[in-house]
């Protein structure tokens, strides 16, 4: 492998779940690590220009982020994350990710750093990182140390988020749970807008991925025994855990997400006792439509809380 000093991480897709873990892992191994900038309209447009028009919004955004990194680092980290278990897979797009990026940017000849695992490999996260570190020419000891320290940091970060969210639950304001994939909810251009609108309306936003992951995952098996996707599991599990504690739920999906198209339909069928707004984000240039829908949703919640629709339960 040629000399790599600087590794680029596109700020899209699973970077919103494991990005900091990757960064600290690489830094622990002595590399410099950069993220692409926060998402905005320009990045989305760049990505859309190279994507097949039917692909999902987050993927178009991801391509934009990859393009931001081209020429700014020695290699771009695009892992192939299939999942660790049959009922905790990722959507098939993650299986295709490195090959997709390689094929789409064939003319640019981007250098891609990747590691691959799949649900039928019966591997563990630690083994995957070990493989990645070894492929970079580091020793086993170095890799293990970098991984365990990065993992520890990630766990504390997640714990802090969970704690902060629990505190928010005591808030006097209208509490709205945003249920969706982390890379939609926390993306500055997609979910970021939603949070801004909610705050302007005097409501607080809670996230499904800031709920304890193990608990959510466990709860999701009561929702469905065979649902194959881990992100949807965490999302539905967390929604089920939180539904009694919040005033309303906004199910956020990005058009046209495959797993969401089926799972969210099921979720809406199961959530009968709490106000639900099913929101699909698209590459629209204005937010007026979003604002109207959120406003009326918040109005409905407040009206109901004030006893407007009578006591339903």
């Amino acid at each position: 492998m040629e000399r790599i000093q600087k590794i680029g991480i596109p700020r899209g897709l699973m970077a919103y779940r494991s990005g900091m873990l990757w960064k600290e892992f690489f830094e622990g191994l002595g590399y410099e690590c950069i993220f692409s900038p926060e998402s905005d309209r320009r990045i989305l447009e760049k990505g859309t220009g190279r994507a097949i028009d039917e692909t999902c919004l987050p993927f178009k955004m991801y391509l934009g982020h990859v393009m931001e990194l081209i020429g700014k680092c020695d290699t771009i980290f695009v892992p192939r994350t299939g999942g660790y278990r049959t009922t905790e897979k990722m959507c098939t797009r993650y299986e295709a990710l490195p090959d997709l990026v390689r094929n789409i940017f064939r003319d640019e000849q981007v250098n891609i750093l990747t590691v691959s695992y799949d649900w039928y490999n019966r591997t563990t996260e630690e083994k995957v990182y070990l493989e990645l570190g070894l492929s970079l020419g580091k020793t086993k000891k170095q890799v293990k140390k970098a991984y365990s320290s990065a993992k520890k940091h990630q766990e504390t970060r997640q714990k802090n988020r969970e704690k902060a969210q629990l505190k928010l639950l005591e808030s006097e304001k209208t509490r709205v749970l945003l249920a969706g994939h982390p890379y939609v909810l926390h993306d500055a251009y997609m979910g970021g807008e939603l949070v801004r609108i909610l705050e302007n309306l005097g409501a607080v936003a809670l996230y499904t991925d800031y709920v304890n992951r193990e608990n959510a995952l466990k709860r999701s098996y009561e929702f469905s025994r065979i649902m194959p996707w881990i992100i949807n599991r965490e999302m539905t599990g967390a929604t089920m855990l939180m539904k009694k504690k919040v005033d309303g739920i906004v199910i956020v999906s990005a058009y046209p997400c495959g797993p969401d198209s089926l799972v969210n339909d099921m979720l809406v069928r199961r959530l009968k006792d709490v106000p639900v707004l099913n929101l699909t984000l698209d590459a629209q240039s204005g937010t007026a439509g979003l604002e109207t829908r959120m406003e009326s949703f918040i109005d409905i919640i407040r009206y109901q809380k004030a006893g407007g629709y009578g006591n339903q339960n």
Partner: protein
Amino acid sequence: MEIRIDDRKKVAFPRFNHYDYAIRYIVEQGLEAGFVLLPPATKETADLGSRYSPDYACAPFKHTLGSLIEAVEAGADILVETGGLCRLDYYGELQKEILRELGYRCEFINLAEYMGGKKKEWLRLAKHINPKLNPAKFVTGVYEGVKMAEYIDEIEAAYFKNAGFEAEEGSYKKVYRQFLLEMQMAENKNEIRAAYQKARQAMSGLAQRIPENPVRIGVVGEYYTVMDEHSNQYLQEKLIRLGASVHRFMNVTNCHFRAKASTMLPKISEYARYSMGPTTTWTINSALDYAKRGFDGIIHVKSFGCTPELDAIPVLQNISRDYHIPVLYLSYDMQDSDTGLDTRLEAFYDMLERKKKVLQ
């Protein structure tokens, strides 16, 4: 007169092209249960399916849901839905819920729950459908049913390869339809084999008139839509009417019993290092194969929003550039009319024929 009451449970699967006949054989001869053989799908099936499906669920979800609703209406006691490696794995659970909410009270078996499970579980399931199950007969029935699927694939492939060049119009179709009719009614392996041999012999005896510039088209794409004629609006039939020879590697035989993804990956390593999704390897491998064998064009078929097949498109675009082979991309949802498809296919075919003439 003796009155025979049929107390066997009636099983139904969603329609899946001509494989319905093989499934019927397995259920009737192997499981010794009843089978609801649905008539060919109509516009009503598609309407029923899309009315009760989520908006951007993929087209196969809507088609299969329509089939299942029609099957309950036709008196099925047990509905069976399968599982797979993409969204298909979740079809069963959601369709079950939708049918419940619609008020249908029949049993629903979701094979996704048994996938990757033990043989014992499968046998228990079979025993549940028919308590008087004869395991030996069941295994033989499955084996013969699979053989029938293989024969259907072989005759179908021969039909689409040659019928475009037939000397007498309709001569291939006649043999093909007769064969399908016999598959629909076959009750033992001798009947299956005899019908297959008859069809093969009859087809090889038919006269052909090969045109000056014969056009060969390879069809690749997503598992259900590419195989199910109703879903792809009789794409291959339309192509042979235009006079092309149509090839399709993707069928049940090749997908489940012959070719393996692990043996295909090395062949396509130039384009994809890893498996990119459930049938993506098949799609890329056969497209590359058609390109290398000098086919005139490739048609890529998928349902709207099918993630794995969408991810194959950038690779197909590269193959198209490298081998100078035109690719037509078709994305299906629930269409009301096929005029649009006709126009596109005609233009594609004319382009291929002309290209061949000019390059000669």
